């Protein structure tokens, strides 16, 4: 069951969306456009990630605003589910079914004819590496197997857009690696994938395009670097490792673009704060070539999502 739509600039659009449960606000006036490709949805527990995914898959109705996927309104539009796949967060199955039975049933529920459903189920199970275990009852699966099975049911009807809600939670490193490969393959196959997680490095290794949520609000979105560049008030923090770190610090403190220097004796280096990282980086080779201040290592904390997120969330 191939479902192809013309290319879109945004596959998922949230327009002024709010969702509240009684007095509790799940999502607060959020406007967001998710482009094609793999996008990470990041935020701590309670940030509103699952709420956002449930809004995007039509399970929840927005209290305000509109949600559309592939240019169609989501709520009360079950036909749209032919083009959407969801790997839900909860670890729940019809435990008495075998993996094959479950995926085949999901394919049938998607409206496929029997032979088509059989073929799609076999393909989906193969794509997640569960062919060997497909005839066992799901109740006997490990956590990693269960996650793969969940992923398979999200893919069995060949959707255009796939939402993955905390797909790597509770998995062992091997399963995590395999699941991440599956997600990357989905993106490479042309599917738009939205992956939610509160584990920063997982999202970072899947995609540079991220959306950051906190307390139901959009904190930032875009490329990690772009997000970092937006934070003008917060200078970039760059660590320089050098044997003569105190002499290096003395030289750098005179630079106009250096806002502050912190000595890090435990790292044999210094932490430099600068608002003009590109300029700073361009001048480093020269100073490194000078006697006594040869720089062994340069790295920036800020390019990691963790640093970006901690700063943004704490604002």
């Amino acid at each position, binding site marked *: 069951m191939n479902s192809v739509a013309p290319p879109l600039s945004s596959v998922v659009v949230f327009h002024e969306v709010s969702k509240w449960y009684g007095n509790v606000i799940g999502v607060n006036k959020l406007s967001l456009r998710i482009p094609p490709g793999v996008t990470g949805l990041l935020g701590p527990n309670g940030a509103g990630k699952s709420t956002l995914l449930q809004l995007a898959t039509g*399970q929840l109705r927005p209290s305000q605003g509109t949600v559309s996927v592939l240019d169609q309104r989501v709520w009360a539009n*079950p036909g749209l589910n032919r083009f959407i796949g969801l790997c839900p*967060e*909860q670890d729940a199955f019809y435990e008495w079914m075998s993996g094959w039975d479950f995926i085949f*049933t999901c394919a*049938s529920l998607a*409206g496929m004819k029997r032979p088509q459903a059989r073929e799609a189920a076999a393909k989906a199970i193969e794509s997640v590496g569960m062919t060997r275990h497909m005839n066992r009852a799901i109740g006997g699966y490990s956590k990693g197997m269960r996650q793969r099975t969940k992923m398979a049911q999200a893919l069995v009807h060949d959707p255009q857009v796939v939402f993955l809600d905390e797909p790597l*939670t509770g998995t062992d490193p091997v399963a995590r690696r395999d699941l991440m490969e599956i997600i990357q393959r989905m993106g490479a196959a042309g599917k738009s994938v939205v992956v939610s997680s509160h584990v920063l490095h997982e999202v970072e290794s899947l995609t540079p395009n991220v959306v950051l949520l906190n307390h139901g609000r959009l904190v930032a979105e875009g490329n990690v670097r772009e997000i970092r560049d937006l934070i003008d008030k917060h200078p970039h923090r760059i660590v320089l490792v050098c044997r003569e770190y105190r002499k290096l610090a003395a030289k750098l403190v005179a630079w106009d673009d250096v806002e502050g220097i912190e000595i890090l004796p435990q790292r044999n280096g210094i932490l430099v704060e600068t608002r003009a990282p590109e300029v700073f980086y361009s001048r480093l080779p020269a100073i490194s070539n000078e006697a006594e201040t040869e720089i062994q290592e340069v790295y920036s904390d800020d390019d990691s999502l963790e640093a970006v997120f901690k700063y943004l969330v704490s604002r």
Partner: protein
Amino acid sequence: MRSLWALYKLSIRQQMHGKRWLVMCLLFLLPAGLAMLVRSNANGARPLEIEFVFAFMFIPQGLLPLAALVYAPGMIQDEQEEQTITYLLIRPISKAALYIVKLLATLTVVIFLTCVFTGVMYTVIYYNFADPDVPHPAVRCLQAAAINSLGVTAYCCLFGLMSLLTRRTLIVGVIYAAFFEGLLANLPLSVRLITVIYYTRIIAYRTMSFVVLRSWGESNIAADAWQLDIARDPKLLEHPQVGTCILVLTLASLVLAVLGAVICAKREFHVKTPEK
């Protein structure tokens, strides 16, 4: 349609799976077991009397509401509790259709139980035990199964709707079954017009004979048990006709089913996630 058919099959499998199915089969076997006991021990008990007690008292007043309470509220609630409802909501199936198909699957299962075990019970009662008042027990079996099926359909539609309005469906359902169907239905008052069992009893009374010949004359065991004043109103002119009863039960079931579908269509189904 294929999605709906797949959902129907899935729901039937869910209902006929596990301990609940086993327990329900054993419960439905109870009338047959008790009938066998009565037959073997009670001297002078007529088959028609045994049939009446079990097929038209025990089953409709006890088993059918119980079966409906066990299955109907769980149609949606069980999926929510087990967090599997998400897999249904993300398929191209509207919530209204989801409700109706699950209801149809539930009705299939409970009607199956009703018909099969009614047949078993009649076999136990009438096998090698002819009753001159009952020339065609097989026909009576079919009639009883059909009447009870109509009754359990109404119960399932009612409790299915109830499950969308309250989480305490079991308690409310038991109170309803005990008070309305058990108590009020047995009183010769107008209030019994709002009970399911009243209409099934009228259908049974008008379409089947419950007259037994005793030493002092004929006795209508149904009229006596169901508080039908046939002495004053021998043709039950004050009571609805068979067609009306069937229409009332069918329409009521349809209305309750449609209401349930409408409520389900507008409902959001929150699934608890670990972070919650």
